[in-house]
């Protein structure tokens, strides 16, 4: 029986599709690509977190030592 052309190609494309479908941010299903994608998502998460805290640190440098100025606080409470 004559083999149909393109069977091998279709098989390969099916495999690739399976891999891609399985790897959409999924971990632990055995595909190396999925593990890579998850690790990439984890790295992005860590970077986002670091950038948030870094920005917070930059902002906090400008925070005054007292929320209320001494004058108002002195009016409300006994100043030592």
């Amino acid at each position, binding site marked *: 029986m004559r083999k149909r052309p393109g069977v091998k190609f279709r098989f390969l494309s099916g495999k690739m599709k399976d891999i891609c479908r399985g790897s*959409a*941010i*999924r*971990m*632990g*299903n055995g595909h190396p690509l999925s593990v890579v994608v*998850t690790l990439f*998502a*984890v790295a992005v*998460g*860590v970077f*986002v*977190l*670091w950038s*948030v*805290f*870094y920005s*917070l*640190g*930059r902002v*906090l*440098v400008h*925070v*005054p*030592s*007292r*929320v*209320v100025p*001494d004058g108002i*606080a002195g009016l409300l*409470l*006994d*100043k*030592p």
Partner: protein
Amino acid sequence: MTAVRVIHATNRQKGKGSVEIMEEAAGLVRRASAADLCCYCLGTFPFVSYFLLFFSRRSGAEGCAGLVSDSLALSFLFLWMKYWQSVYASRLLAGVRNERKEFLLPCRQAAVQTVFQPWSLFLLPLSLLLTLPFPWCFAFFQNVTVLGAEGDVRTVFRRAYRQSLLFPAQNLLVILFVLNLSLIVYLNLCAASFLIPLLIKKLLGIETVFSRSHHFLFTPSFLLFLAVLTYLCVDPFVKAAYVLRCYYGECRETGAHLLSELRALRRSAARSAALLLTATFLLAAPRYLSSGKTEGLLISGSVPFDRKGVDAFPGDPVP
């Protein structure tokens, strides 16, 4: 079209009342074992302590020195906290479901939290600014914490999203309840930190730094410290409330409450059967021994013990 309408209608169902949910959450936290609370503390205390240190360093004289390493350490501690909070929540969920509490797939659970939770620091303030999407966003990230151990990233996303759409009125009222509770706890802590040094001075005559001046109440570090204490007081209840919301949402879809009740019934049946057997044995054994029917037992063995000097048993043949 009809199916979509049905889904929207079921999502809009009221569910339990927010006060009822919070009461149940309080009961759940009270019933939680020491190991559950240890899981929560193990994750939360390091982050909170380091955050206070980070704040005092940055707003103090140090400025931007060592900011890169500090923020990196804080990021890892945040992820550590989220992982342990997820463990705490999943253990509470297992308790509600009457399942065994186990540590499952720590790598996957940590990965799930690392993928989702950093975005909460962006999306929650943004949604609060837009006001309307805040309840759904808040519920989504709480659900990610609760359902973190339930599968891979995609499954957790899908389930957390579906659960966050359920009972919107209940969700909103729970958030308002938590907000009010946080405010009350914060004010109480402020009052306590103002009054306790005064009371110590009046009653015991001990002068402290805090009783000399009340200006410490206006420092950002102290206000942040009180906010952190408030978070530590309120957050376990919030997690428990979202555990219950997820559980009731799951019950509507899968009938998990029936399985849970069946498990509880099976466990209690096994326990009562064991008790019954023990009681039967304890009651029957002395009567059996005293009735003199031990012969069969002795005959079944070859020579149980040296019978010299032992009185003859009632059934023994007379020599």
